[in-house]
């Protein structure tokens, strides 16, 4: 039986920001404020509708719905499975490991052979047990999946301790606890680690208002910011910052922009700080460890790790040590340590693909390409990231009976749209060497001969 709830609340969090005032406002949802009482009612009602299962796949598009779902799952000690996308293939793959999974949805998503619970069908019932705002530190709140090089998704366990400590360190680093509290608006999905930490856990732990929407076009972002109470924090990515600079001359007073998922150039950060009269900070993190370090981009290349995280060298690898993840976590980006709390980023390792902030293993993507029926050989090429337009992967494929469109179509069910190669170049054979390898030099020559 869970030890969450009112009793635990009193023991653990007498100073929780949301308990500081009667019915503190938690979220801005469909243009109105939601207080703690209403939130707790929503959670209790959703709890009544959940199946007895160990694992929820929370597909809610609305951030407030997502939070209610997350909390309801925690109340029942269910684990939230965070998938990188909602492709049926991927969900089916995960279902092999977690047979009892079900999806919580708040739109018309459907899928065969997976139980669905609709957020709208919460069971109205008097609230018997008020959900608490604190849970046992070791309770597994979520499992975040990353694509491994071997083609099998890798699980990363996130405990309550892990998520709350990261949120608290983030809040402290950005001075969100001292000042007057406003709203946190995000363009990123709550299912992604960055979104979960910066747009769900961060407001929850600080008493800042969680904005339930997910504005998309720059004009949407400006409109949303204009309609939330300040001060305003925008949680976003370099792709969106670039788009906002291209389209918006001005935004309402914006106190902080947080960017993550891909490197932000100092030039874009400078432009954003000047145009929007704000400060731009970046978070460095990755799924395995969560958010780990920050920098104010315009200040230069040095990253500052959060207080409880240390950079160390272990068996020749740069690793991060945290109090909330048992093993040291290998950093897959290439870092240049300065000391235990500071580093510079030197680039990515050759297996990592980052397209508009979405990450995947190149090895895994190559496996998926070669799994397609009709593909006898294929390879993906990853160009260097730039500040300019998002560069897609290129593919060279040997598949006499297929077209590029049919290959794209087949990939669409297997991988996130961001990684679908463009262009797909059909060849009679790949220039592999005698041992069957495709040396980088030959791949580069192939690319050069096909680029205009």
């Amino acid at each position: 039986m869970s030890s969450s709830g009112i009793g635990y609340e009193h023991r653990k969090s007498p100073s929780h920001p949301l308990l500081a005032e009667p019915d503190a406002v938690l979220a801005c949802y469909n243009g109105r404020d939601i207080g703690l009482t209403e939130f707790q009612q929503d959670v209790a009602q959703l709890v009544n509708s959940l199946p007895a299962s160990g694992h929820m796949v929370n597909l809610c598009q609305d951030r407030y719905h997502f939070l209610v779902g997350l909390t309801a799952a925690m109340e029942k000690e269910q684990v939230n499975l965070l998938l990188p996308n909602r492709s049926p293939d991927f969900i089916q793959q995960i279902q092999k490991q977690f047979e009892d999974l079900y999806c919580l949805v708040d739109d018309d998503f459907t899928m065969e052979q997976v139980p669905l619970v609709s957020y709208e069908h919460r069971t109205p019932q008097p609230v018997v047990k008020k959900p608490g705002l604190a849970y046992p530190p070791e309770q597994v709140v979520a499992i975040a999946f990353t694509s491994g090089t071997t083609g099998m998704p890798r699980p990363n366990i996130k405990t309550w301790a892990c998520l709350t400590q990261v949120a608290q360190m983030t809040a402290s680093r950005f001075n969100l606890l001292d000042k007057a509290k406003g709203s946190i608006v995000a363009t990123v999905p709550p299912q992604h680690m960055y979104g979960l930490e910066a747009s769900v856990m961060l407001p929850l732990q600080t008493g800042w208002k969680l904005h339930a929407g997910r504005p998309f076009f720059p004009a949407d972002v400006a409109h949303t910011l204009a309609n939330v109470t300040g001060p305003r924090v925008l949680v976003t990515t370099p792709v969106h910052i670039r788009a906002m600079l291209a389209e918006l001359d001005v935004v309402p007073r914006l106190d902080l922009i947080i960017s993550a998922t891909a490197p932000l150039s100092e030039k874009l950060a400078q432009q954003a700080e000047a145009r929007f009269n704000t400060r731009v900070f970046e978070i460095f993190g990755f799924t395995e460890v969560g958010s780990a370090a920050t920098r104010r981009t315009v200040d230069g290349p040095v990253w500052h790790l959060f207080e409880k995280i240390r950079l160390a060298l272990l068996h020749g690898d740069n690793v991060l040590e945290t109090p909330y993840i048992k093993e040291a976590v290998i950093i897959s980006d290439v870092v240049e340590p300065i000391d235990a709390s500071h580093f510079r980023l030197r680039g990515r390792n050759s297996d990592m693909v980052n397209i508009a902030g979405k990450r995947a293993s190149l090895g895994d993507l190559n496996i998926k390409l070669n799994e397609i029926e009709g593909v006898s050989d294929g390879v993906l090429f990853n160009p260097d990231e730039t500040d300019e337009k998002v560069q897609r992967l290129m593919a060279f494929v040997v598949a006499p009976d297929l077209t590029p469109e049919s290959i794209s179509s087949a990939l669409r069910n297997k991988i996130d749209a961001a990684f679908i190669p463009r262009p797909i170049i059909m060849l009679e054979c790949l220039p592999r060497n005698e041992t069957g390898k495709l040396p980088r030099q030959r791949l580069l020559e192939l690319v050069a001969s096909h680029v205009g």
Partner: protein
Amino acid sequence: MSENTPLEAEVAQLIVDTLNLDVTAQEIVPDEPLFGEGLGLDSIDALELAMAVSKKYGFQLRSDDENNARIFSNLKALSDHIQAHRVS
């Protein structure tokens, strides 16, 4: 295959140029889906397109709904929207 109006042809060319697509503007059918299936564009493309539309036609694309970027389903819908809102 239905013929594109002049604006549809121009918008189709904008799509091809902006997104570096392998198809020609003529190959984009007005009622074929742009996103997901059909042309297979995604949300990254939608943002790029929004920037290009803003630059060329002088207005900003907006979503219908706070949560779902009501990304214009096909070339005809996008062209009609541009026709209605263009400033330049």
